[in-house]
């Protein structure tokens, strides 16, 4: 077996193998055009090597001429595909250079088939066979060079310039290694290719080995491919490790990870997520399936949040209940992130969901207990005022009794004045209604219902409270001055709870003035608007003792009291109520004597009162 056959065949073989590998890669990754282009160029190089082998064994002029003619085809393929490959893979090389190379080479090819015998030779006169290394006999053409062949040489020159330019670009980019290997082997190959015109012009006598000019590239690309594969393996390993870590984290945090392919409306979710949402292990999931699992009351808000994220790209976050197949309820918090394509359309949403049932239940329980506390405090206060309330009921009852008994006497006397009896009956009715109102008020106070949200006039709240505590105030000889502003805007809230707050403040004020002389026992209740804050302000001013400055914050804490009796919960409950109404409660000491307690509430429709 001659070594020339072996070596040229090996070259061709290597090129075919590399082409095949790249072709397979391209088949798997259709967007990876460089791989296809490289495959084409490698196939072309392999063909060139094979044709050169045939040329070396060429016996006749005609045979040789035909071979030279046909070698231009793979040369053309090689040039074009490799230049395109360089542009795509290395992302380097000037466009105009590339296009001029394409144009020139194509022209050369066309010309090659027009001219006879081919573009390189005007005429091949003879084949010279001589001995070369290793005792091989090779054929070399002797003939007259075709001036048109210069075009071919020109294209070769352009190719060299192109390669140099591309390599410089890659080097400047910082990709030194690649510039060295790929760029270097390209340039080396281009330089080597110059042997062709030299042989044609009869300057040197060596066999054509254009195929080998390509070998450097093959080696370089082979190296790149191997390192790519090595990197891929490593990446795959890292990915697997990262995936494992992610899963472990998600598992221990009870997170369900999900991904929603918006375009195809398919949802992928981890097994944990499936069990979280109560989906079957192999159920196909889409957005509708997710929607159907939501609690009817929460559906609206969740859909709104999703739609908002899809529209604005904002982070998705919502808390909602789901109804499991066994009718059980579960609280979930979901967080996600939307990905958009180049046209700004949402294509994917990725996120995580977490079971917060326990937390939500704790929150609800805490809220319930707070409500209980508020109610308890209210009932206790009412208990302490029971004397006052009994008196309030006593008055109308006494009036009713005496009116009725007077009427009885009048009728028994004989000469009854019906007009008077009518008056008596009117009085009875109105007193009964008054008593009924007191009972109604009491019932509202004692009820433990849900917190109401009504539109209220704060002045009415003040009047209602004063009605309830009237007798007590008279008993304690406290005078109340009301400075209620007209046209105070309405606020939203629970009337009973706000009365509770005001009552507490008034009772506290009275207690503070217990040691004052009677003329000093004055209490001022003011209502008005707080400038610039969009809030309604209510204040209760007494003339009792002052609050020590360092205790100003503490007085609103639970179980703080300076009184001999009571648990000290009143002000902390007031604070809870006012905060729940998005208002603010505070106290200041008056300049002369006593203290003033203020609370502010946001006006209907405005933001929370902030100070």
């Amino acid at each position: 077996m001659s070594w020339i056959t072996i070596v040229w065949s090996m070259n061709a073989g290597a090129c075919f193998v590399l082409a095949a590998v790249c072709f397979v890669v391209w088949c798997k990754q259709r967007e990876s055009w460089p791989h296809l282009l490289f495959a084409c160029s490698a196939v072309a190089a392999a063909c060139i090597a094979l044709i050169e082998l045939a040329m070396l064994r060429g016996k006749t002029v005609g045979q040789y001429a035909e071979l030279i003619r046909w070698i231009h085809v793979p040369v053309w393929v090689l040039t074009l595909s490799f230049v395109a490959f360089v542009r795509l893979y290395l992302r380097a090389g000037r466009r105009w250079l590339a296009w001029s190379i394409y144009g020139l080479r194509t022209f050369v090819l066309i010309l090659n088939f027009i001219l006879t015998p081919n573009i390189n030779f005007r005429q091949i006169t003879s084949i010279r066979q001589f001995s070369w290394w290793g005792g091989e006999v090779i054929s070399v053409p002797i003939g007259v060079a075709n001036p048109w062949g210069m075009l071919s040489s020109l294209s070769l020159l352009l190719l060299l310039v192109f390669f140099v330019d591309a390599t410089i670009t890659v080097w400047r980019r910082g990709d030194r290694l690649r510039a060295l290997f790929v760029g270097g082997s390209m340039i080396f190959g281009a330089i080597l290719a110059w042997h062709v015109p030299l042989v044609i012009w009869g300057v040197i006598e060596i066999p054509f080995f254009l195929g080998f000019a390509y070998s450097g590239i093959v080696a370089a690309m082979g190296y790149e491919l191997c390192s790519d594969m090595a990197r891929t393996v490593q990446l795959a390993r890292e990915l697997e490790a990262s995936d494992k870590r992610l899963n472990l984290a998600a598992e221990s945090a009870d997170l369900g990870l999900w991904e929603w392919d918006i375009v195809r409306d398919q949802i992928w979710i981890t097994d944990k997520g499936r069990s979280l949402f109560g989906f079957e292990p192999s159920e196909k999931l889409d957005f509708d399936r997710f929607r159907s699992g939501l609690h009817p009351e929460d559906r609206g808000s969740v859909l709104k949040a999703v739609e908002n994220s899809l529209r604005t790209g904002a982070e998705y976050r919502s808390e909602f209940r789901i109804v499991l197949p066994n009718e059980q309820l579960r609280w979930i918090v979901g967080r996600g992130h939307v990905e958009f394509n180049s046209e700004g359309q949402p294509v994917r949403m990725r996120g995580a969901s977490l079971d917060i049932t326990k937390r939500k239940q704790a929150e609800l329980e805490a809220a319930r207990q707070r409500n209980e506390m508020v109610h308890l405090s209210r009932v206790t206060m009412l208990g302490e005022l029971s004397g006052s309330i009994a008196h309030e009921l006593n008055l109308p009852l006494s009036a009713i009794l005496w009116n009725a008994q007077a009427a009885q006497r009048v009728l028994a006397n004989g000469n009854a004045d019906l007009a008077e009896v009518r008056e008596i009956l009117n009085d009875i009715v109105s007193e009964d209604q008054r008593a009924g109102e007191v009972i109604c008020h009491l019932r509202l106070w004692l009820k433990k219902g849900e917190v109401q949200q009504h539109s209220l006039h704060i002045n009415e709240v003040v009047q209602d409270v004063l009605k309830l505590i009237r007798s007590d105030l008279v008993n304690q000889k406290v005078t109340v001055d009301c400075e209620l502003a007209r046209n105070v805007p309405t606020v939203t809230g629970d009337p009973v709870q706000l009365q509770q707050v005001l009552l507490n403040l008034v009772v506290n004020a009275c207690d503070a003035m217990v040691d004052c002389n009677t003329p000093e026992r004055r209490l001022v209740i003011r209502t008005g608007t707080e400038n610039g804050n969009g809030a309604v302000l209510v204040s209760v001013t007494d003339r009792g003792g002052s609050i020590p400055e360092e205790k100003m914050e503490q007085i609103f804490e639970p179980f703080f009291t300076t009184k001999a009796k009571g648990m000290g919960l009143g002000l902390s409950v007031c604070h809870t109520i006012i905060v729940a109404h998005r208002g603010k409660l505070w106290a200041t000491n008056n300049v002369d004597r006593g203290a003033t307690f203020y609370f502010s509430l946001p006006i209907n429709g405005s933001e929370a009162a902030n100070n």
Partner: protein
Amino acid sequence: MTVSPTATVFVVDDYAPVRRSISRVLHAAGFAVAAFPSAEEFLVQYDPHTLGCLVLDVAMPSLDGLELQDILAKAGSVLPIIFLTGTADIPKSVQAMKHGASDFLTKPVNDEELLAAVRAAIEKNRDRLREQAELSEIRERLATLTPREREVLEYVVAGKLNKQIAGDLGTVEQTVKIHRAHVMQKMRVQSVAELVRLTQRCGISAR
């Protein structure tokens, strides 16, 4: 039982419907009624010589029932007070009774009970007024005595003989006899025993 038309029941209560209803009951029972919404207004219009009684609410703003009682007591009023209260306040009721209230009732109270208290109070008032009138009459009579006659009066009610009195006063028995006759005549009594009774009522001590 009817009472003389000059008996007036005064009603002081700050709560109008109660005032009106009490007035109606009293009116239907045949009493004259004068109602006032506050203690101050009552004081302005009250004539101490009127026969009657006072139905008074304890809990009132500014001047309350007990304070009014004290004011009336200081002014030497004999008007009986019937307190009405909405709450069963023991300290207040004790204080009221100690300071001489006629009665202390808790609302709502039956009309019969109220009327009974009113009648009893009015009778008490009648007696007291009569006594007051009698006393002032006695004092008027005493005022007509000359200082000498007054002295003689005091010796006479001590049981001294004319001779002794003459000796103590440094005058003759005859003068004493004349003074004594004047005293008996001016004081309009027939016997010494009567005179003694009168002077005791006035609180004049024997010399």
